[in-house]
């Protein structure tokens, strides 16, 4: 197990390196310097600025400087928010995004698995059809459509919850964004759970379990559930990426000061260092999650562990 973990850890290093390298050189490919668009600067000031942003050196040195900075968690200075470093900006937004994302994942898992099992164990009944068509709606309606609809219904028409804003993180302001993030995840996980549950319930070892004389509830909880959840576990990696991506839109719509909102603003403002920093940061996060998911999977499935 520890050998497997170590190997997976080593494998994720090149991935991270590719992400960093790709974003670094993509950014440097950008036409024009970071200070274009502002009025023409005197040459000496521009030279000073370039020196301040470490851009007067050869490209490869800049690259290694950036790598060295990343090793100690330094993403460099922001181009637009001149008083902040990218690291500061990321750390100011990340806890908020992280909290929303985790809640959304948790809700997605609990309800997705619940609905999926319910539908699978009552295959081809009205309950199954209801769950599955709702899930299909959750997949077909993108969250940037779902979020305004939720706001319109619960915020504007019913007035139960605030229609937007952050209000320093009051729980009322978190409900709708979390819901908007969680709904597609519930839908995906429910569909996946149903499919794998149906498959597992037809497996021969389930027949063996029944032949032992244990109750149907135990057959499901002790024997079927774990196997049926394996595909869901491996979906958690991509799901994390999905929630992170989703939060970019959701934070934009609800005006939440998370990392996703910074990212979109930075992208629109051409704040290269911030965009790059966020991409690298998110890249690292997704790689980390994939790693965690693989380890959980290996822990659950002994056949992988000993490979």
């Amino acid at each position, binding site marked *: 197990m520890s050998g497997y973990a170590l*190997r997976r850890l*080593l*494998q994720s290093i090149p991935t991270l390196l590719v992400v960093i390298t790709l974003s670094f050189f993509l950014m440097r490919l950008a036409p024009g310097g970071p200070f274009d668009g502002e009025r023409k600067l005197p040459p000496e000031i521009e030279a000073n600025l370039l020196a301040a942003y470490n851009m007067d050196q050869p490209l490869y040195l800049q690259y290694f400087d950036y790598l060295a900075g990343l090793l100690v968690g330094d993403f460099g200075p922001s181009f637009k928010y001149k008083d902040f470093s990218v690291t500061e900006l990321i750390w100011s937004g990340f806890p908020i995004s992280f909290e929303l994302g985790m809640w959304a994942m948790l809700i997605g898992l609990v309800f997705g698995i619940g609905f999926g099992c319910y539908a699978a164990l009552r295959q081809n009944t009205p309950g199954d059809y209801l769950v599955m068509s709702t899930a299909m709606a959750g997949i077909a309606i993108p969250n940037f459509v779902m979020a305004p609809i939720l706001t319109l219904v619960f915020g504007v028409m019913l007035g139960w919850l605030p229609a937007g804003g952050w209000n320093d993180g009051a729980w009322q302001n978190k409900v709708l964004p979390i819901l908007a993030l969680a709904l597609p995840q519930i839908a995906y996980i429910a569909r996946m759970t149903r499919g794998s549950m149906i498959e597992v319930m*037809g*497996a*021969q*070892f389930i*027949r*063996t*379990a*029944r*032949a*032992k*004389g*244990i*109750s*149907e509830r135990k057959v499901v909880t*002790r*024997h079927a559930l*774990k*196997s049926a959840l394996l595909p869901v576990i491996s979906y958690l990696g991509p799901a994390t990426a999905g929630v992170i991506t989703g939060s970019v839109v959701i934070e934009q719509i609800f005006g939440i000061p998370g990392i996703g909102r910074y990212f979109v603003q930075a992208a629109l403002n051409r704040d290269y260092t911030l965009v790059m920093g966020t991409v690298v940061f998110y890249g690292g996060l997704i790689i980390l999650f994939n790693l965690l998911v693989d380890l959980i999977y290996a822990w*659950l*499935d*002994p*056949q992988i562990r*000993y490979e």
Partner: protein
Amino acid sequence: MTAHISAKAPALPILTIDDLHIDFVLHTGTVQAVRGISFELYKGETLALVGESGSGKSITAQAILQLLPEPVRYTKGSIEYQQQQLIGAPTAAIRKVRGNRIAMIFQEPMSSLNPLQHIGHQVAEVLIEHKGINRQQAAARVLELFQLVEIPDPQRRLKSYPHELSGGQRQRVMIAMALACEPDILIADEPTTALDVTIQAQIMALLKNLQQKFGMAILFITHDLGVVHQFADRVCVMRKGQLVEHGITKAVFSRPQHPYTCELLDSEPSGSKPAVSQDAPVVLDAKNVQVNFPIRAGFLGRVVDQFRAVDTISLTLRQGQTMGIVGESGSGKSTLGKALLKLLDGHGDIHFDGIQIDGLEPLAMRPLRRKMQVVFQDPFGSLSPRMTIGEIIAEGLKVHEPLLSPRQRDEAVCAVLEEVAIAPSSRNRYPHEFSGGQRQRIAIARAMVLKPRFMLLDEPTSALDRSVQIRVIELLRRLQDKYGLTYLFISHDLAVVRALADHVMVMRSGKVVEQGPTEQIFSYPQQEYTRELITAACPLGNAAQRAHSSA
């Protein structure tokens, strides 16, 4: 007809099945899987339910424990265990019987065990459920059971997962699980079919031994008449959901009453092949053939070691000869066959028709390909599902006789289909519309259309029912006689090899154990392993012959 004949004839049967009817209601219509089955099972006896695939024997077995999946309908009849009606009984009542009074083992020991749980835990679960004991007590009992079913190193195995065990060991675990509560009845649904012959014999001996120890009745479901003959007291022969014959094993085997039983007994392969003359021309001559498979590991799949699948084997095949290669799974027999035809890379001198073929480029190999053809085991996998059988058969002609007109090609296809007894009119159909036996004939037609000299037959009959098998064997014999074909016949089924081959090579772990004329190997095996194989295969031998003569 409910025959009350029993070897031991105690007063009351423990299991009575009376006029059982089982339907499956599918959206395409209702399938009557079982139509009026009646039999009784007495304490301590072994009753075999015999039939070919689709006869309803497995369904009957699963119906006893009410394990059949929806949409099953028990339209008529009853299943009584000690006067208790099981059909439609409350789930709680059935659960008290399942695993406790009536236990079951299945064909596929790998997929029948939960892959994510320790095997010790899986066996303990039955005890905890039915005996009301705690985990520690159960663990101690499981250890005893593992010793009883002769699992090596039982203490360590408690914490093993199914994939860490061999096929035979997994079946032993299943048996331990079934015997945990010392049931009255053990239902064994093809328990040895997925296992190698020597393992098969060990498992059967174990079951027999445990039956004597615990005095349980065994309901044995199988298609293998040899096993029935050796182990069953009584036998029920099933066909298409009905019971066609029922009686004491010895009586049924020596004086079968129903024509279908006679057919089944006759379909045990019989006959033998005379050796060819020593001056027949040599078709294939191979010296020191070796095949290595690289073992890869690590991040980029570096080759860390070699696995020697075929270890320095030499053989000579003369025209008209049939060489049988026997061995258990993993012995390298198929690999050897493919290496001889250069379907995979090996080392060694191989001469085909006097031409050295090892080291030939694929292009140079092509003209020789038509003279050496292959028929594979899997009648489902060996025909491309997206081509009509006409296209499949014509493909070789397109490669080797590109000058033929479409009409000539079509005529050749029709002729060869007729030869293998498939209606030429069906040549525009797709493989999935044919039965297993028909597909195997089509595969033979694909090879025969090129008029080869040599055919590699890689387990061509293993996936087929005996009665279908016998017709394929007859076809192969007829083709050999007619065209003077040379066969290399690979099989794990010793009965078929004995009937078809004049020369036998026994393989194990990539090496030749022994080889020689068929009768010599079967009658006077020199090596311990060969003897083991032959005893394990428990062919009907004399019983079949007697049935044959008296029928």
